[in-house]
């Protein structure tokens, strides 16, 4: 068992005005593992992820990163810690090419001129490290890419930096079978490279294919966080839909 989790949340609350979305949520993510975060629509997954990524702050609770208490106030703060979020809607610029998108907002330059060569090399190296075969086409515009390729670019962008934690909000939601597999493969490789990966998904097959642990949210509460190998499909579905399954979930 890894000693300290990369990410540890304990007793986290979050309200939007009078609406309390997260209640006393606890969640951990370990290096080298894929942690699936499941829950029904509106369970609070995206809200939790945005809190992790510094898009908004949690109201209460403990947020530890590598064991240290932190409080990222913006996506920039989170990125500085080594947290990268791939949002539900990808946030790529279609008129820019792959390299330009991967370095967007963090361009390398010498003097006032952009260092295109260095950026292209780094982008190509990252993609090939993740076994994405893009030789010679990292200069393709995103508008020319398929949905799966776009997702790949978004994920590779998160892996380009010295990130410790990558969170993917429903990366395969709009993808076909082959492209979903490709993205899952990529997710697995990120974890195998020692990153902590959090994967939000509604698809049980994806969850079981790729994750090491699964955490379930039900109406804004954590109802379970267990090793994927210790549970069955049915149990996870029950956790999602009713918040409990056999001896899993909070005591009534």
């Amino acid at each position: 068992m890894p000693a300290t989790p990369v990410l540890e949340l304990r007793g986290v609350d979050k309200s939007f005005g009078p609406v309390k979305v997260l209640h006393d949520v606890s969640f951990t993510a370990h290096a080298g593992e894929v942690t699936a975060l499941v829950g029904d629509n509106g369970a609070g997954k995206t809200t939790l992820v945005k809190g992790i990524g510094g898009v908004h702050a949690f109201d209460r609770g403990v947020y530890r990163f590598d064991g240290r208490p932190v409080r990222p106030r913006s996506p920039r703060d989170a990125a500085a810690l080594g947290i990268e979020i791939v949002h539900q809607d990808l946030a790529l610029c279609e008129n820019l090419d792959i390299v330009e998108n991967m370095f967007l907002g963090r361009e390398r330059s010498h003097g006032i001129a952009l260092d295109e060569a260095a950026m292209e090399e780094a982008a190509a190296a990252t993609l090939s490290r993740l076994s994405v075969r893009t030789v010679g086409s990292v200069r393709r515009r995103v508008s020319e890419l398929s949905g799966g390729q776009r997702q790949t670019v978004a994920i590779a962008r998160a892996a380009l930096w010295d990130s410790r934690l990558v969170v993917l909000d429903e990366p395969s939601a709009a993808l076909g079978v082959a492209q979903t597999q490709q993205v899952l493969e990529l997710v697995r490789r990120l974890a195998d490279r020692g990153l902590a990966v959090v994967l939000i998904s509604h698809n049980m097959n994806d969850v079981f294919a790729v994750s090491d642990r699964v955490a379930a949210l039900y109406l804004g509460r954590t109802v379970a966080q267990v090793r994927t190998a210790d549970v069955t499909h049915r149990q996870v579905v029950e956790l999602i839909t009713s918040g409990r399954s056999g001896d899993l979930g909070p005591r009534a």
Partner: protein
Amino acid sequence: MSTDLPKSEKPAVKFAAGDFAGDRPPGDMRSAALDAWQRVRSGDLGATPAILGLLGLIVLFTALRPETFLSKGNIANLFTQALPITILAMGLVFVLLLGEIDLSAGVASGVCAAVMAKLLVDAGQPWYVAVLAAVAVGIVIGTALGAFVALVRIPSFVVSLALFLGLQGITLRLIGEGGTVPVRDDVINALANKNMPVGLGWALAAAVIVGYAATEFLRWRGQHARGLAARPIQFVGARVGVVTLAVLGGTYLLSQDRAPGPIVLAGVPWGVLLVAVLLIICTFVLGRTRYGRHVYAVGGNAEAARRAGINVTRIRVSVFMIASTLAAISGIVAASRLSSVATNSGAGNTLLYAVGAAVIGGTSLFGGRGKARDAVLGGLVIAVIDNGLGLLGTKAYLNFLITGVVLLLAASIDATARRRRSEMGR
């Protein structure tokens, strides 16, 4: 689904072959041609329509007016005619890249020119003070416009329409009803009416060509050596060839003696040098700096840019400042060309011509696509139309109609290209 596999065997998913199978090793002619074809099919036509249109129009007007259109005097005239439109359009490219519009750029150029003229004539200030003041006024106008668009969040066409009206009032107030202010300053007038020595023109042309060829080939060599995606050398050569031809041809035409009498009148107008310098600066800023990259990003997907940590508000304000600053310079050049500033300076079809120039050159009205050179190509097309129709002696009403149709045509190409792009994606 087996859930009890040891972790090392976890990848139960197999890499989907073929998703990036379109990838080819870079640099060979065939794949580059395929790439280019792919781009054209996806509606990305680059400078091709503008260049073809320009050549077509030149052939047309030469056929219709063989003795006047290609005469030496008229060609020089054509270039100086294109100067103010081109400079105004170059500023508008920045605004259009964000998918915004500045309807007030034309009259802003008029106000700036009026400020300059008043300082020169009434206050007796030296030319550089007057020019600096005009540019400062341009920056102020752009900042105000940008602030209303980016901070108050009013659509840019509304803010700039309000300015379009308001600024005409200011010009009217400065110049006085129905009046004109003559501009007699030698330096200002030289801009559009005086030429550089023929030798200097050739020297600068050579410098531009050598500089361009060197940057292109050095970049290609660097990319090639480091194994990066590079266009095949033939493509680079062809581009350099086209630019060389255009620069040498232009310099040659402008170096001919175009005076009807015994006095020699030859050389590249100084204003052409000004446009060349602005073109180089704007091309560098847009293509090679972080700022330029962020302009494209905001134009492509403002939300993505914001999430990437780009200050979208600052970018929005800045493009309007750039547009108005270049509008001020355009107003100065226009004043130089006419040796006067009138109450209707920068009004009328000035803005329509400039927007038309940018769009004809290939800049998209929908944001995210466009280059500084579009302004030059489009500015030449507009000047050729305006000039050619003048030589044909067409009535003013036809002139308006034809220019309107050309703008509509360019916008249609732009909209069609955009539709094709969104159909190609996914």
